[in-house]
């Protein structure tokens, strides 16, 4: 049934204009939850190494719904909705747990880690009185199970049976980059950061696709030569959806720069007193120093030199999200490599020398967009189409237009 949302005009036929209301409108947000976060798309729910033993479980989130990611007795990883079938309580409030079963504290219905209801107190009543009807079948009242797929230790879940398998979902090129980092080696979590950002969730994946801002906003990054727009780089898109992306780049020498006269914030005279947070060693078979894989709708995994992190966006309403950082390495890392990863964490996260620029400007975005829903963003860098930029060209907002190509097809019934 068409609703107001379907009648609302998009400001341009193509995606070179994005209306500000998509970043604040509550009806639009509710539809995003239904069609995107609870639709046939995959959400990141954690790393398998966070629940290493049979009987381990942890809380995670899909959309706004709490889920439990579990490793059942047979070692298999699953995910269930964290809500008791009896009266709707969140069954588990602990971040991490271990046990044979999950017991709801209210009336002590118990479930096994696959979600099957295995215990109902007073099912037959007391002294022959009361109890559940004869035809009450616990098999009908298990925890809602999600579909789960684990990609070399990264766990993804979806409510929708129709979601394609992860490899097909991402497409070959993006899959290859995701599995360059999740390459089959056992993973090890090095820590977490969590922060609230008062802005719309889409700004995060857009930012991670946006190579334009990286060389302008991030003075630290460019001043210390970690990234510049003139570096050899790649912007990849999944050619079918246009909505999964990779931004990657290879560092070149500080002096070997072009286009820096347009980078007003470039400051060449800064020097670090303690260089250890930047000291990296070559770790992969290629020379890629930054690789950002952005998966629709809102999961990012980034390699920056030896720094590896998942950046997961958890939606909290139309104008707020939580950014959950999971820092990781490989279980086989030696002490030196682990220390490098830990030191580099200074660059990113909730106090990151680079990353705070992003989360701060998102709140500037909210302030501007929320009060001006009738205005539009101009997204014309690199043209107006959704084609990926030609190889090596980083000066394009094509990936953001690509995101909205899929987004509009999912979200609005009346438009193509």
């Amino acid at each position, binding site marked *: 049934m068409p609703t107001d949302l379907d009648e609302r005009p998009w400001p341009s036929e193509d995606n070179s204009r994005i209306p500000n209301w998509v970043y604040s409108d509550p009806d639009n947000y509710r539809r995003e939850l239904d069609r995107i976060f609870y639709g046939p798309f995959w959400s990141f729910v954690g790393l398998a190494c966070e629940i290493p033993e049979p009987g381990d479980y942890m809380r995670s989130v899909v959309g706004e719904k709490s889920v439990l990611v579990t490793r059942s007795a047979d070692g298999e990883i699953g995910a269930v909705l964290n809500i008791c079938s009896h009266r709707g309580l969140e069954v588990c409030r602990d*971040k991490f747990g271990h046990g044979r079963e999950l017991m709801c504290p209210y009336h002590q219905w118990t479930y096994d880690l696959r979600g099957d209801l295995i215990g109902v107190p007073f099912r037959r009543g007391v002294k022959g009185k009361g109890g559940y009807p004869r035809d009450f079948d616990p098999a009908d009242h298990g925890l809602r199970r999600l579909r789960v797929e684990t990609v070399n230790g990264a766990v993804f879940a979806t409510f929708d049976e129709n979601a394609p398998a992860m490899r097909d979902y991402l497409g070959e090129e993006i899959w290859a980059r995701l599995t360059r980092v999740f390459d089959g080696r056992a993973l090890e*979590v*090095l*820590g*977490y*950061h*969590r*922060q*609230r950002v008062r802005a719309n969730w889409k700004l995060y994946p857009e930012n991670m696709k946006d190579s334009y801002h990286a060389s302008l*906003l991030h*003075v*630290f990054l460019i*001043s210390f030569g970690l990234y510049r727009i003139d570096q050899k780089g790649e912007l990849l898109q999944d050619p079918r959806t246009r909505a999964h992306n990779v931004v990657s780049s290879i560092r070149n020498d500080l002096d070997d720069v072009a286009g820096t006269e347009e980078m007003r914030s470039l*400051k060449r005279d*800064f020097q*670090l*007193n*303690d260089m*250890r*947070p930047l000291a990296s060693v070559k770790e992969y078979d290629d020379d890629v120093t930054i690789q950002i894989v952005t998966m629709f709708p809102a999961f990012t995994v980034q390699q920056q030199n030896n720094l590896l992190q998942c950046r997961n966006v958890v939606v909290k309403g139309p104008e707020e999200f*939580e950014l959950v950082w999971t*820092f990781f390495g490989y279980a086989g890392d030696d002490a030196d490599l*682990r220390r490098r990863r*830990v*030191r580099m*964490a*200074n660059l990113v*996260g*909730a*106090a990151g*020398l680079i990353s*705070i*620029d992003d*989360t*701060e*400007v998102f*709140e*500037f975005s909210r302030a501007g967009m929320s009060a001006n829903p009738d205005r539009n963003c101009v997204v014309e860098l690199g043209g107006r189409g959704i084609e990926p930029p030609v190889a090596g060209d980083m000066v394009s907002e094509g990936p953001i237009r690509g995101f909205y190509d899929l987004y509009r097809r999912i979200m609005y019934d009346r438009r193509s």
Partner: protein
Amino acid sequence: MIDDRHAVQDLYAVQDLYARYSECVCDDALEDWPGFFVEECLYRIVPRVNHDRGLPVSLVLAESRGGIIDRLTAIRNTMVFAPRYMSHAVTSVRVTGREGGDLLSRSMLTVHQTMSDQPTGLLLAARTFDRLRFDDGVLRFAERVVVCDTESLPSTIIYPL
């Protein structure tokens, strides 16, 4: 229990250090901030979950006074953020022990943040575990570990804790 005059003097010195440190941050006199640390120091802000699970990643890590100066350079010159005032409340200051010439101390810390155009809000609640050293006759941090209960931070951490 405070059992001698030395202990009272130590506690006074520690409280005085915490007060001056808070004033440095809240008065926005950050140029003085590195001077609160000895040259070979360790400064960490850690989410409590990492601390409790023994995970090594910090929110902020500096392993020398140079690292502290680097963060100051970033705050003053490279980071992009909205203007704000900080307000530190340090309570329950206690000297918990001595090791060599060092004093071990801890405190409870709450930090409020005031953004322009907004009412004051709570940024975080934390505990600090510190190692203090008389260095050139001045008490300085040899180690400062701030463990943040506030796991889901309502905002970025720009200024020192």
